[in-house]
């Protein structure tokens, strides 16, 4: 049976390796995740729809997905800029900046949350000048955006950077020698090459932002209908022992994450094919 499923190899350990992998995957990930879906089946369809379309839930979903979308767009722009500057120019402190890009990966989200709150609170370093202009950031939806922009940055930079590094400079030089202006070169030669990476980075940042909790709860203010993100709503349902309600919302988020994961896989396949094609050219 298994022999039919795999190509023969002299190497040992296929069954042990696959067995360990599948067992661990099932115990830690697959069985617990299926629990969420099975739990929702204890609800009738009507009940499920009533829970997920409650105004407070819809408001939180709109906020979570909307803020994540805007944050991912901001990250796409500044991530591209940072990746570009880090691969193309030499300047003092470049290696430190390059290492710092991963700070949002390495810094625990709760720490990021309270730090951003301290900076953007009405008495904070940035919050105070903004407050004088009449702009409130912390404890408003704008604060959520700030947190999501913070955690998403490395996804875009780290996806674009290798593509820019491996890009053949001949095309650019050819374009330049033929009289193309720098902006023309960027838009017509460079941008088409990095679009797959840019879209992948954007989707990764978006997927991360949708589920983010730790960095957001401190700065959000958490007002129902205004600044309450979906993960927080799940927690507050749990704290009221409304397990079915919490799970129904969680299933909506799970389905969204599966769709995003699928999209990321398709995009990465696209990226690989694009790169392979380029090498042939």
């Amino acid at each position: 049976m298994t022999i039919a499923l795999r190509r023969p190899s002299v190497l040992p350990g296929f069954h042990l390796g696959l067995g360990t992998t599948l067992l661990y995957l099932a115990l830690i990930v697959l069985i617990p995740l299926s629990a969420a879906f099975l739990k929702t089946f204890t609800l009738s369809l009507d009940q499920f729809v009533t829970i997920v379309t409650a105004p407070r839930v819809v408001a939180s979903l709109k906020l979570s997905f909307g803020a994540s979308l805007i944050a991912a767009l901001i990250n796409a722009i500044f991530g591209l800029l940072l990746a570009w500057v880090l691969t193309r120019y030499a300047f003092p402190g470049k290696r430190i900046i390059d290492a710092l890009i991963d700070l949002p990966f390495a810094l625990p989200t709760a720490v990021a949350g309270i730090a951003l709150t301290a900076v953007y609170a009405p008495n904070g370093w940035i919050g105070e000048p903004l407050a004088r202009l009449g702009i409130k950031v912390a404890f408003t939806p704008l604060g959520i955006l700030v947190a999501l922009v913070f955690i998403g940055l490395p996804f875009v930079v780290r996806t674009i950077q290798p593509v820019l590094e491996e890009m053949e400079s001949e095309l650019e030089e050819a374009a330049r020698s033929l009289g193309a202006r720098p902006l023309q070169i960027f838009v017509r030669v460079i941008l088409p090459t990095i679009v797959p990476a840019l879209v992948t980075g954007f989707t990764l940042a978006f997927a991360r932002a949708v589920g983010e909790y730790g960095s957001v709860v401190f700065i959000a203010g958490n007002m129902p209908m205004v600044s309450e993100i979906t993960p927080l709503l799940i927690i507050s349902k749990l704290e009221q022992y409304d397990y079915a309600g919490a799970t129904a919302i969680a299933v909506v988020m799970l389905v969204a994450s599966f769709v995003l994961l699928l999209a990321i896989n398709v995009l990465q396949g696209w990226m690989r094919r694009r790169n392979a094609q380029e090498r042939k050219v």
Partner: protein
Amino acid sequence: MSAVLEELKELRPSGEGTTTAASKQVDVVARPAHRAAGKREGTWVPIVLIVVALAYVAVALLLPLAAVFVEAFRKGVAHYFTSIVDPDALAAIRLTFLAAGIAVPLNLVFGVAAAWTIAKFDFKGKALLITLIDLPFAVSPVVAGLIYVLIFGLQGWLGPWLGDHDFKVIFAVPGIVLATVFVTFPFIARELIPLMQAQGRDEEEAAVVLGANGWHTLWRVTLPNVKWGLLYGVILCNARAMGEFGAVSVVSGHIRGVTNTLPLQVEILYNEYNFAAAFACASLLAFLALVTLVIKTVVEHRFLKAER
């Protein structure tokens, strides 16, 4: 790409030969043209871009990092150290190390097993398996915590049985360990899989043909080849394990001195308006993040060297 080349050819004065001739031509003219373009463009474009990028990094990344340490020492050095040696804080540090100390080795063993299976063999369903391994990255930490509550919680599948045997998972240490294992699940595997795929199978096959057994081959051939990638994965896995907040928060129950990890301790202190102590504990985690970044940079450097 060929479309661009096509366009470029159109831009050229007519009467040029094949693409190879064109690219030869480019090689000759590229350098002087580059300099001329530099002059035309002026040096201000790179400078503006660099300044904007640096300003962005300073405001978006450095400012929050600095805020952690400034706030931590706001009430003085003495208060800082009192906050850190507080018994609840120390208990939180111990629990954080315990959770990471279990989660990282488990995911390490899994990562090596998964990478060996996926990189060294061809079998059906491989792409699906890789996607499933990535799954925990796509799941919100809060949902990760919730699924364990659904299984091990009082109303969960195993809740009544666990209750009868007086064994607590949720609102206890085992739940915290499980949640940590889940969120750090893919880290090491996804570092190792592409690396081992790129290295191919020739060396392992040679070792086996020459009579080495599987464990020997793994220990003497495969692992030395991927050691930097392995270390890289372990560092990232550890940073996430020690810093995880959302998933752990759902299963912890927030019992001081018992089920609080360091990030949860930060939250509790912060919500009690004990800001200086919260930031003092947070500064330990920020320090861990900085150490992680330094080791990561060093490992990447070694990695590039080893590849050359």
